[in-house]
């Protein structure tokens, strides 16, 4: 197929041709980046939490007024929850992976003399936390009961720098271990908090994501042998079989209400609901991005259809002459397909440069990584296909123009 005649025809419709190229370029640039944003959001929404997500329910209560027997109350509450049929594990915890609201975070150091913190980690605490969450221990051990310290006692000890009143050990995630001591076993290693207070790693879990502040490292999590009670803001975390969750949640609320009716329920939900709520914004944004991509592609495809139809109608006579001079239907079809291919190609080349520019802008303002190279060929093919599909209708109509048109004067 000779492209020279096509180019010379296009030269007579310069502005229209450039407008179509511009439209294809803009669509290409925006869609490439939007699809990339979608993939980022999907990746975020599918982050592994490292816990038994479908087996957990959460109940958060709040006392009315101050009470002195919070620790004793916690013990009776936990005992009552364990009695509920179907409940396998129970814990009082402060935070869960991928939830909004309060989270406990701290900078840690590898050397007591160090000025800057090495990494910012989140601090999980609560008795029986690891087995209730269902995290997988890959090295070392879980805490012993005698290692636990009450939160208020630990804070007091921290203020006075009294090492005795503080927990001595902690458990960290594999990801954090690899960040702190690449290629080595983390067991027995020391980390430092505050003004050089030392703590020893006794266990490593496979995965455990942070509650929020994910940009500081999704799995930079630490677990501490610190026990908490309802007055300190802890919630009950109950583990049971997935199909038992609704029933267990009801029984748990009833049992807790019976033990002390003078409490307010702040939160009652399954972990799945909590996670769903945390990613609600990402889900909404993904929906919007998908909608915009579809709308853009449809508008562009319709634009191509409209423009091609015009050109076909305008060139009816010329087509007729060509047909009368011996051009086959396939020749005419090919002509319009090649024309579209040329316009799309120029549009795609400009669009890719634009996509790269937009990506640079997004990288600066939205902490987005670089657009992977694979997006360029895939985006190009997608637009070529859409262009060809859009032009097919008008091109077929052009091919159907009978040679006799050439002999008629309008």
């Amino acid at each position, binding site marked *: 197929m000779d492209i020279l005649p096509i180019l010379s025809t296009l030269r007579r*419709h310069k*502005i*229209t041709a450039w*407008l*179509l190229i511009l*439209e294809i370029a*803009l*669509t290409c640039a*925006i869609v490439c980046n939007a699809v990339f*944003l979608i993939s980022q959001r999907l990746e975020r929404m599918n982050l592994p939490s490292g816990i038994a997500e479908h087996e957990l329910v959460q109940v958060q209560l*709040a*006392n*009315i*007024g*101050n009470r002195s027997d919070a620790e004793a109350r916690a013990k009776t509450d936990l005992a009552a929850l364990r009695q509920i049929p179907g409940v396998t594990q129970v814990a009082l915890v402060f935070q869960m992976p991928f939830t909004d609201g309060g989270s406990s975070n701290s*900078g840690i150091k590898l050397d007591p003399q160090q*000025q*800057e*913190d090495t990494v910012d980690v989140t601090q999980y605490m609560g008795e029986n936390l690891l087995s209730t969450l269902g995290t997988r221990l890959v090295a070392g051990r879980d805490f012993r009961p005698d290692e636990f310290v009450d*939160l*208020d006692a*630990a*804070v007091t000890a*921290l*203020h*006075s*720098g009294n090492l005795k009143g503080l927990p001595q050990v902690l458990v960290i995630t594999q990801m954090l271990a690899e960040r702190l001591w690449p290629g080595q076993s983390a067991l027995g290693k020391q980390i430092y908090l*505050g*003004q050089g*207070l030392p703590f020893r790693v006794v266990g490593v879990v496979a995965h455990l994501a942070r509650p929020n502040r994910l940009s500081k490292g999704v799995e930079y999590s630490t677990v501490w042998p610190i026990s908490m009670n309802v*007055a*300190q*803001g802890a919630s009950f975390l109950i583990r049971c079989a997935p199909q038992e969750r609704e029933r267990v949640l009801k029984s748990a609320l009833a049992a807790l209400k019976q033990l002390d009716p*003078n409490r*307010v329920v*702040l939160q009652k939900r399954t972990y799945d609901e909590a996670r769903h*709520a945390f990613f*609600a*914004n990402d889900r*909404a*944004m993904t929906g*919007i*991005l998908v909608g*915009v991509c579809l*709308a*853009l592609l449809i*508008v*562009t495809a*319709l*634009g191509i259809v*409209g*423009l091609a139809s*015009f*050109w076909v*109608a*305008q060139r009816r006579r010329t087509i007729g002459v060509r047909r009368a001079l011996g051009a086959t239907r396939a020749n005419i079809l090919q002509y319009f397909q090649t024309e579209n291919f040329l316009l799309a190609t120029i549009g795609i080349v400009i669009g890719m440069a634009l996509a790269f520019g937009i990506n640079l802008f*997004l990288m600066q*303002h*939205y902490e987005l990584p670089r657009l992977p190279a694979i997006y360029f060929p895939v985006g190009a093919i997608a637009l070529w296909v859409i262009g060809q599909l859009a032009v097919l209708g008008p091109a077929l109509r052009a091919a159907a123009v009978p040679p006799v048109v050439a002999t008629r004067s*309008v």
Partner: protein
Amino acid sequence: MFAYYLELALRSLMRNRALTALMVLAIALGIGASMTTLTVLHVLSGDPLPERSNTLYYPQVDPRDSAGHDSDKEPMEQVSWTDGKNLLQAKRANRQALMTGGTVAVQPTQSALDPFYEDARFTTADFFPMFGVLFQYGHGWNAADDDSSARLVVISSALNDKLFGGKDSTGQMLRLEGTALRIVGVLGDWRPNPHFYDLNVTNYAESEGVYMPLSTSQDLQLVHDGSVDCWGNGGAGQRPDHSGTCVWLQFWVQLDNPAQAAVYKEFLVHYSQEQKALGRFQRPPNVRLRNLMGWLDYNMVVPGDVRLQVWLAFGFLLVCLVNTVGLMLAKFMRRAGELGVRRALGASRRALFGQLLVEAGVIGLSGGIGGLLLAFLGLWLVRQQPTSYAALAHLDPWMLLTTFLLALGASLLAGLLPAWRACQITPALQLKSN
């Protein structure tokens, strides 16, 4: 003439119904999407207190130890109990208020209502006059009440409706966390957005239901909500920290002119030097004094997603416009023969231009009206979203005007180029070829 052009335009548009629909729909979609996102951005980046915002300032000092010190670092975003008290008592500004958020259990006396939790603000007397808080009944409290940790509260009108059916409840007692407090005031409709005075709790929340003196809340050992940052061996549980190594309070001042602000900034530097001399601060003075809007900007209150959506929508509008310009141009050029005849019969270029512009204008205007309807639909969809700012997404008269201008501008822009191009044709050539 205009009526005739309009008739011509309508006739021409009716001839290619599908194409007309495509052009109108493309403009409507583009404008609808742009206006929806722009309205959300406009609502979220608004000034919470338009009359007062330029006299309100948020002082920051840096009380940390020297660990991790780096000279160009920002100071802490809140103040510690010690610094907050010192700055409050210094009274160097026209008005000043120290505050933090909390959640308190409300125990209604009516047996029909179960106890429930309500967001609270623990603050000092100047909060109400400084922020221009409107009262429905009663008034705020004074400095003497702060000093004596008076057992009193101010409640929001929503809470007053819930507990007292909207009647004047001043003088009545309210049980909070097992303590009875006297109601001295009920707020009017006061709900600044964003929630500028404490961005830790939430950016676009409803305002708190309960306001009480900070001193009273500390007396009653109420837990506080919001972010806590500690350094050295500081650490905090749910109980507020009074040791001075954790920041968890917000401090606002009112300074009526820039000269006063400059003087106040000097004072903050002197204060930091004095505290360093005392051994409390270890870093060289590092202070900031941002005004209200500056503070909101610094905290990037408007969610990044919202800005991204605006960019996306305008990109979409641009594609839709280019699409429409291209189609309109092709359509006008197709009618070159007809236009050539009109020129040959004596119509001036200007008349032709006017005729084509009317046709473009009809498309643009229909697209604009469609866009407006789509914007209403879009905002309704935004309001169904689970975000905290969802309920705020409404079109105000200002944005309505912007929509019309945008639609008009977009349609003229879309029509100008095709109309101008179509006027350039030489009549003789067109007549000859046919």
